[in-house]
């Protein structure tokens, strides 16, 4: 896995932090919790515990949307610029390339998700009271939220890999990733409403299960689509 880590490091150092646009886009998603908290949902009297949970969920997952665009662009750009060929010509396994690229995108985005959740927690403590935040968001829930964000990124990343193998241009990849982001945002919003009405954690469990099912389907499709010969043939 040393070479996967090397690829991941290159992605982070040169493609993410070397691209101002990517940094600004990701930063924009990270600041969304401020908007959520400042919008004062649930005021007066403050939001109930479920509303706080939903706000925390959205603060964690919405920054993950930026990861979808990043993963889409990294693979389609590699194809479009022909940079995948020298990489495939090196003595590394296909899995190292895929894992390295996913890690390179998922790592920084997870950091953004964690920062966003942290920012929400700090701002929420000031606005709604520290005790209420601690009650609504115990450590295990915070951990569960981050795991959910990770699952979402892996799921979306896998599907984006499939798209990247099929489409020919970065633009087409970005457009499809945009559709995925829109769809995901809509699902998160509906989930928020559902969670507020159901008033328990079943929506979170449902989301987690949905991610796992989507992962299994994505892996099977990716296995069929991402055959080295087929991908090379399209380059």
């Amino acid at each position: 896995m040393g070479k996967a880590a090397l690829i991941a490091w290159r992605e982070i150092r040169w493609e993410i932090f070397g691209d101002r646009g990517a940094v600004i886009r990701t930063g924009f998603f990270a600041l969304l919790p401020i908007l959520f908290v400042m919008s004062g949902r649930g005021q007066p009297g403050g939001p109930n515990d479920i509303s706080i949970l939903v706000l925390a969920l959205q603060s964690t997952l919405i920054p993950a949307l930026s990861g979808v665009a990043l993963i889409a662009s990294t693979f389609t750009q590699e194809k479009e610029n022909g940079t995948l060929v020298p990489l495939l010509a090196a003595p590394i396994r296909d899995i190292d390339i895929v894992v390295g690229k996913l890690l390179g995108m998922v790592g920084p985005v997870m950091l953004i998700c964690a920062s966003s959740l942290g920012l929400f927690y700090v701002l929420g403590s000031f606005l709604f009271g520290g005790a209420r935040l601690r009650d609504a968001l115990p450590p295990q829930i915070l951990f569960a939220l981050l795991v959910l964000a990770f699952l979402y990124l892996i799921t979306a990343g896998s599907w984006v890999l499939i798209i990247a193998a099929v489409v020919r241009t970065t633009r087409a990849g970005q457009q499809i990733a945009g559709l995925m982001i829109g769809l995901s945002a809509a699902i998160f919003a509906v989930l928020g409403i559902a969670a507020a009405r159901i008033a328990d954690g079943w929506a979170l469990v449902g989301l987690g299960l949905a991610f796992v099912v989507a992962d299994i389907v994505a892996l099977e499709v990716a296995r069929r689509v991402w055959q080295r010969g087929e991908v090379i043939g399209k380059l």
Partner: protein
Amino acid sequence: MIDVRDVSRSFGRTVALDHVSFRVEPGEIVALLGPNGAGKTTASRIIAGILAPSDGDVLVDGISVRADPGSIRSRCGMVTDQPSLYERMTLRAYLAFFCHLYDVADAARRTEELAKLLGLSDRLDVRLGAFSRGMKQKVAIARGLVHDPPVLLLDEPATALDPETARSLRSFIVSLRARHRAILLCTHDLDEAQRIADRVVVLYRGRVARAGLTGDLRADAHPRFVVSFTGDVATALDALARAGVNAEPASAENGYAALRFDADEPGTTNPAVLRALLDGGLRVITLAREERSLEDAYFAIVQEAGESNG
């Protein structure tokens, strides 16, 4: 050494390579020629171990590409027609990255060595996006050499280079041959192939249309001769026609008239030509075999292959 053994490769219903065989020995440059879509790039990708053959096998230094493509990749250096660089990286970071991918022991030293070799030492900390096309191609070559491979696969390496850079690239490739590298040069540039290739393999629609030494290929098939003389061209043509030799006017050299003719059996035809001209009262100055350019040979081979394929 590269040993391509009866390799076929299909993409869906498209047959890119059809039972192709050839060899490249260490210290040898073999040019893989052919029109677009002939299968040159597919062949080099199969040899590089990044694409599996549908049928047949390739051995690189005795290792099968089917059995161990990873080892093959660590023995091949590949240079593509497009530089295909990560343009946000600096030259130093880029070469170091590939050194690490190829498990080169001292990446920093190798990076500086390669930059010096290709005259890029003063650009080590410049982002690749700021490089000219020629410099980018040099970087692509450096990338292919990071692990000092015994086999080099060069796919149109001089595409879009200015004549000066292309010339220095040719010298560099020749210097690698002197260091016992087996070099496969896929190219459209017949002049380049004629200058540096020891042998030529012509692919046409995925099949080997012709293979041989570059010199033999140029001298192949119907040998042509040029006779120069003093006197009237029409008289000479009449004299040769009477002797049963079809000739055509060739460009005059040093003020002498000249005729060109095919001679499948030079031992019979050439004396007949000389006799006919002398009997016609013409003074023969020279009679010499005309060297075909590789370009002429290539077009003749491709035309022949096209006709035999229907």
